[in-house]
């Protein structure tokens, strides 16, 4: 309970004068004004980059390097702005703001569970017996557009409902448990391996267009998940081994609504990330980093840079799948190394005896806000563009129209909205890391210094990711099959 609870503490003890508070408010006002000004610059740049991507409309085109630098600069500026907020009581009051409402009753929970199981059954059934064309099959549209694009967004924008909706959990809870002891030393590493495996399969297999392959994959995943949950017990399995539950638990921390033991708590978005408890081990931290990494890799394989690199490596005689796999793992290794470096910097810059592991546990969740921002950037346009298809195919899953309708032209400003979410995710991450530093380090200058390395990593990640998001999408080479969009 240290550094929490009593917001009047440092003010009462140091007797901050009215002038102090006034200065703080002024600093906040200035901060808001500057963020607005930077956004005003970043927004047209974003719009133009969108224009570039769609080979579209007129206007002054902002060159890519400038667009990327602006994004990186905005993140750097948000660190400088956050450093003006040095009042611990004020920071704490923002993170403590919230209320709690009672949880819904059993009946509502069971209704949601029934819907979850029903949707799963329909998806697998239509996947196996429905049309073989991806864009006409309800299973493909439902999984990739509704679930992956829409539902996942709800876990970080609204709240994580997966523990209730998760059909695999519902099924496993109806079955008797074997209660085999879960090997303690595995920790949550199985979820890390599972996440890397799922995204690997998603990238190299035709899961996005082949309904039969998708239905098979869901059935296999379901068998492993229900089998594991029955063997080790549902709470142990979904906490440590199931990558999807883990991912949603992480995203749920970004959301304003969270299910707690006593009810439903409502807070400001992202503020729950500054609390401990989500990341409790090295493996949990590795999972958060993997979550950030897989989004990047998924986008990266659809860029010209990867096409050229892979073509060159395969031309040199390496098997294509080996090229994909080794770069996949090397990239993850690079992400882990960079995070380790940033934490090492934080440790020495803040002159603290807190261990690297403890710092990693506390700071890793702040990056989840960034991961959420990029999830929107990757999915919003697809979600809206294919929404008419989902409705038309969903209305008659077994005899869908030959050419399901799509939104012919998605409004250009939607790309601007996507990029705004990317920036908001970054600002949130910078703020959360700032708040965590204030909780961990007694000296405020140490707290600011601890953010140098972390901010540098965030700036670099912004530049790389903005490039991936705005660079034209090319078909990943050497993988048969077309993508859905």
């Amino acid at each position, binding site marked *: 309970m240290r550094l929490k609870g009593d917001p009047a503490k440092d003010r009462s003890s140091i007797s901050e004068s009215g002038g102090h508070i006034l200065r703080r408010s002024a600093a906040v006002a200035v901060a808001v004004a500057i963020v607005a000004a930077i956004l005003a610059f970043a927004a047209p740049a974003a719009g133009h980059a969108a224009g570039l991507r769609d080979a579209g409309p007129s206007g*002054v085109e902002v060159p890519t390097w400038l667009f990327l630098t602006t994004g990186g600069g905005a993140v750097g500026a948000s660190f400088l702005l956050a450093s003006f907020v040095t009042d611990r009581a004020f920071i704490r009051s923002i993170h403590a703001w919230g209320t709690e409402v009672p949880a819904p009753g059993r009946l509502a929970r069971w209704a949601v569970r029934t819907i979850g199981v029903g949707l799963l059954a329909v998806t697998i059934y239509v996947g196996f017996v429905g049309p073989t064309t991806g864009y006409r099959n309800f299973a493909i549209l439902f999984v990739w557009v509704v679930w992956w694009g829409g539902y996942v967004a709800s876990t970080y924008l609204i709240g994580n409902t997966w523990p209730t909706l998760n059909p695999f959990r519902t099924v496993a809870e109806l079955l008797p448990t074997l209660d085999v002891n879960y090997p303690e030393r595995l920790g949550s590493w199985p979820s890390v391996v599972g996440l890397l495996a799922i995204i690997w399969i998603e990238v190299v297999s035709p899961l996005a267009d082949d309904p039969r392959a998708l239905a098979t994959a869901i059935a296999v995943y379901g068998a492993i998940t229900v089998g594991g949950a029955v063997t080790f017990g549902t709470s142990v399995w979904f906490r440590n081994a199931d990558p999807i539950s883990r991912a949603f638990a992480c995203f749920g921390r970004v959301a304003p609504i969270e299910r707690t033991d006593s009810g439903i708590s409502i807070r400001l978005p992202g503020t729950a990330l500054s609390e401990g408890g989500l990341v409790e081990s090295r493996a949990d931290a590795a999972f958060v980093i993997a979550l950030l990494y897989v989004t990047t890799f998924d986008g990266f394989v659809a860029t010209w840079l990867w096409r050229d690199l892979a073509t060159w490596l395969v031309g040199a005689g390496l098997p294509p799948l080996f090229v994909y796999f080794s770069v996949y793992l090397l990239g993850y290794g690079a992400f882990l190394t960079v995070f380790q470096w940033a934490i090492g910097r934080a440790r020495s810059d803040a*002159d603290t005896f807190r*261990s690297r592991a403890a710092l990693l546990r506390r700071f890793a969740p702040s990056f989840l806000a960034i991961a959420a921002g990029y999830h929107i950037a990757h999915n919003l346009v697809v979600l809206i563009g294919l929404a008419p298809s989902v409705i038309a195919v969903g209305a008659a899953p077994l005899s869908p129209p030959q050419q399901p309708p799509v939104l012919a032209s998605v409004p250009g400003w939607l790309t601007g909205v996507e990029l705004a979410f990317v920036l908001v995710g970054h600002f949130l991450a910078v703020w959360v890391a700032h708040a965590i530093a204030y909780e961990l380090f007694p*000296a405020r*200058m140490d707290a600011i210094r601890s953010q140098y390395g972390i901010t540098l990593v965030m700036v670099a990640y912004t530049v790389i990711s903005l490039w991936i998001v705005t660079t034209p999408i090319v078909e990943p080479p050497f993988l048969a099959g077309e993508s859905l969009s």
Partner: protein
Amino acid sequence: MTRQTAENRSEAGEVEESAFDVPADSEPIVCPYCSMPLSTERQRSLHIGLDHYHESTDREQEAFREAYAEEEKELSRFRIVALGGLVALYFGFLLVYALLAV
């Protein structure tokens, strides 16, 4: 090569193995109330004032006030640098965009 300290518990109250990492050859300043290892006298004064204010002695409270005021000076210097950085960023971008718009 590391030794554990007493304050090794998370918010949940569970004992973690490695909340602190004190190299064997270092001489940390240890908080008299919770045994947290700290690097400097100033860190200790601030830590005691922030976490143990009500149990601390008059002298420690005095040291906290001094450290806090000193910190305030350091922060003011940093704020000037940060403001300079923001102004540089803002006008840097303004200039580049203006040049490109010509």
